[in-house]
């Protein structure tokens, strides 16, 4: 398509007038006006449930029953099916991967528009076209014929983006495109976005991640309760103002965690290795301390965590708990010894979505609530209720199926699950990924509390502000090694980032 050019000429690429989408009982999107100009990045922010994902779905043509008018290049269109949206040059980049694993990269990228020569497919064209798309995200070293299941997670994420770009969209909608990307890849993505801007694409950028928005967006629209609060030029607002608009009252996003004093060692790891994942890891962690672990994706952070809780076996090295050596057989054994791990993949590894809150929260406690092989769920009830109250899980109903909770609340349930089994060492892997600010604050408070009560927290997070704000120390991990330890005093978002990229002085 060559309408990228027209887009520049016309200016107003995409416009929604008083769009409304009602679900039985509620109005998810309520008379929202929204527009993107060609060659601009328009950020869309709001808490979970504010209606931005619904709005995005409307753009994607997932609903056929929204009301309101949509204009593309000033001509009215209706987006009642995904194909309709595609036809009008709208492309989506979804938060969670939407690639078919057993299928080749080429077919994933070109899905729905595989080139044909008369009746049959045109292999050469497929290859060239795919490579063209991959080039845009710097993946042209991949063979288009390899199945997606054989490439790495973050490569897949980029393929996803390549797939969207490949359709030469004139409007590109990105929903948390950076959630699975490391800092450097985020930088590359921003580079791509800037180029697209130059080429005159209109880009809708949805993110919880304010720094990103201030880095890349031109305008920002804030949604709350399905209503549009305001649209501002990014240059004219501050982060605080945006947050205020989002939550409807002023908060300071993070509050500082006072320096750590106790020096009673809980965990000591001596040159621990899992060959090919991380080597010669040494560190100590103290009672009531929050140790941040920072590193780019693929640095081996999660792998380390998995070994610490016995999900994988280590190849060499020792682990001491309270100065006693501990050979962890499996995760159950680790739990007995008070080491727990909150996974980064809530939906696939964290929560059984079809079960209710109670069953999920108490999942870690099954052995403890079993006497003579008989499991007694009632033992957990008081604990359950206090946790629900503390984390203010909405609705406070232990029998609610987790599927029917909002993302933020699901994450709270996941945390509750591990707070329930009183742990000595708690490893948190991205505890606030894709969570709205309200939930984020609650979660942070709970982490603080745990630390105060003497639990050793190991915080793995790519959310630098969070990491810096909460940690007493930050261990920098790079390519399977701990390369540096930074005390709170020297930690700033920038310094940590530099270190994680292997730069910055020792």
């Amino acid at each position, binding site marked *: 398509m060559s309408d990228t050019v027209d887009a520049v000429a016309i200016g107003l690429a995409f416009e929604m007038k008083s769009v409304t989408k009602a679900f039985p009982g509620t109005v998810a999107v309520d008379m929202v006006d929204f527009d993107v100009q060609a060659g601009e990045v328009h950020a869309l922010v709001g808490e979970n449930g504010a209606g931005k994902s619904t709005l995005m779905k409307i753009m*994607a043509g997932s609903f056929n029953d929204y009301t309101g008018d949509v204009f593309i290049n000033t001509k009215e269109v209706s987006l009642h*099916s*995904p*194909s309709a949206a*595609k036809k009008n040059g709208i492309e*989506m980049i*979804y938060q969670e991967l*939407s*690639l*078919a*694993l*057993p*299928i080749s990269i080429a*077919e*994933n990228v070109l*899905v*729905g528009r*595989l080139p*044909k020569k008369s*009746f*049959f*497919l045109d292999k050469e064209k497929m290859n060239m076209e795919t490579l063209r798309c991959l080039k845009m995200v710097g993946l042209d070293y991949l063979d288009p014929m390899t199945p997606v299941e054989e490439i*790495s997670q973050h490569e897949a994420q980029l393929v996803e983006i390549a797939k969207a770009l490949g359709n030469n969209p004139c409007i590109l909608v990105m929903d948390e495109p950076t959630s699975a990307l490391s800092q450097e890849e985020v930088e590359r993505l921003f580079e791509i976005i800037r180029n697209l801007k130059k080429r005159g694409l209109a880009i809708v950028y949805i993110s919880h991640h304010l720094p990103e928005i201030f880095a890349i967006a031109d305008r920002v629209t804030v949604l709350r309760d399905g209503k549009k609060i305001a649209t501002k030029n990014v240059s004219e607002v501050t982060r605080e103002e945006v947050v205020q608009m989002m939550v409807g009252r002023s908060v300071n996003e993070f509050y500082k965690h006072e320096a750590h004093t106790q020096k009673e060692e809980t965990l000591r790891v001596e040159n621990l290795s899992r*060959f*090919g*994942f*991380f*080597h010669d890891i040494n560190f100590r962690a103290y009672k009531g301390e929050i140790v941040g672990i920072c590193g780019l994706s*693929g640095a*081996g952070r999660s*792998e380390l965590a998995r070994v610490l809780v016995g999900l994988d076996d280590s190849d060499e090295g020792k682990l001491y708990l309270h100065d006693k050596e501990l050979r962890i057989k499996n995760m159950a054994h680790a739990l007995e010894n008070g080491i727990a791990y909150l996974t980064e993949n809530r939906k696939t590894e964290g929560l059984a979505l079809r079960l209710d809150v109670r069953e999920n929260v108490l999942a870690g406690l099954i052995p403890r609530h079993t006497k003579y092989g008989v499991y007694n769920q009632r033992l957990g009830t008081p604990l359950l209720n206090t946790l629900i109250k503390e984390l203010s899980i909405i609705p406070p109903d232990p029998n609610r199926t987790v599927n029917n909770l909002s993302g933020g609340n699901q994450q709270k349930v996941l945390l509750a699950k591990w707070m329930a089994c009183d742990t000595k060492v708690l490893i948190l892997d991205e505890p606030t990924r894709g969570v709205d600010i309200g939930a984020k604050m609650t979660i942070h408070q709970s982490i603080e509390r745990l630390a105060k009560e003497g639990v050793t927290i190991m915080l793995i997070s790519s959310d630098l502000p969070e990491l810096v704000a909460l940690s007493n120390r930050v261990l920098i991990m790079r*390519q*399977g090694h701990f390369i540096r330890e930074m005390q709170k005093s020297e930690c700033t978002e920038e310094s940590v980032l530099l270190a994680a990229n292997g730069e910055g002085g020792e």
Partner: protein
Amino acid sequence: MIDRYRIFLLFIVVFLFMAIFAPRFFNVFNLTTIMRTMAMNAVVAIGFTIVLICGELDLSIGTIITFSGVVGLGLKEYLGYGGSVPIAILTGCGIGLINGLLVAKAKINSFIVTLGMMTILQGAIYTATGGNSISLSTEDAFAVSDWLSKMILPLITPRVLITIGFIVFFTLFMRRTRMGRNFYMVGGNTQTAWLAGVNTDGYKIVAFIISGFTAALGGVLFAMEGSAATLKLGDTSLMYIVSATIIGGTAMSGGKGGVFRTFIAILMLDVLYNGIILFGLGNEVKIFIAGLILATVVMYEAYAAYKHDKIVGQRAELLKELNTKHGK
């Protein structure tokens, strides 16, 4: 690499083994016999494979075979083959359509739907025939069956030719056409396919229709060649085709596999069985060996995946470093 060509290697090995050791295996007559035995299951397996590629399962093919056979021959005396055969095949498609609708639209697990359909058809067949197989011993019926089974080329009888024709057609269709590839997409990740504007429900339904079609075709051709339709015609086919498809390398999880591989797998099994009979061994051996092959294949795949899980995400440079470290 090996995985890709596994089934072909397997076939070559089995074939050569039989060709060398089995008495009276390697001659036109016997090879033709094999081709003719293969004909029915090979056709039916096409549809089953496509359904499996869509990530669904069709347990009703066995009974569809029988049903179409019964319809095809039962109606002949009133309509002649010209009328009855198309009707029989259409019935097959119809059953497939019902399966498809229940799976795609009513969102009932295909295992359940087709299992239920299996029972229903079983009853329908016996009710329709009163437990009495249908046979035609009229001259024109014999004429048709003779024509279907006479050798026109070495190894090739018309029925075999039809079979191979459909195999080739569907192989090309699944490999080379956009529609064909979309079946893989639907099986690989329904959500993505839908978002890419592929009518996923439609494809699933079509897959079941194809399955019904091929099953009916196979059944009716077989019945015509024998100019009789028994009520147990397809009973053994289901499990036979399931194993063949899996041995051929089509994954239950969907999105993987192909029609041609299934065909080769069927051929392989038939060569094997034929040889076993030539050696004068009984079914027990046949069942045993078939089971072993299936088990080995499944276990091999499972184990490969198991190993893969263990090493996925390893970093090359770290392994290198490891070697250097242990080097010194």
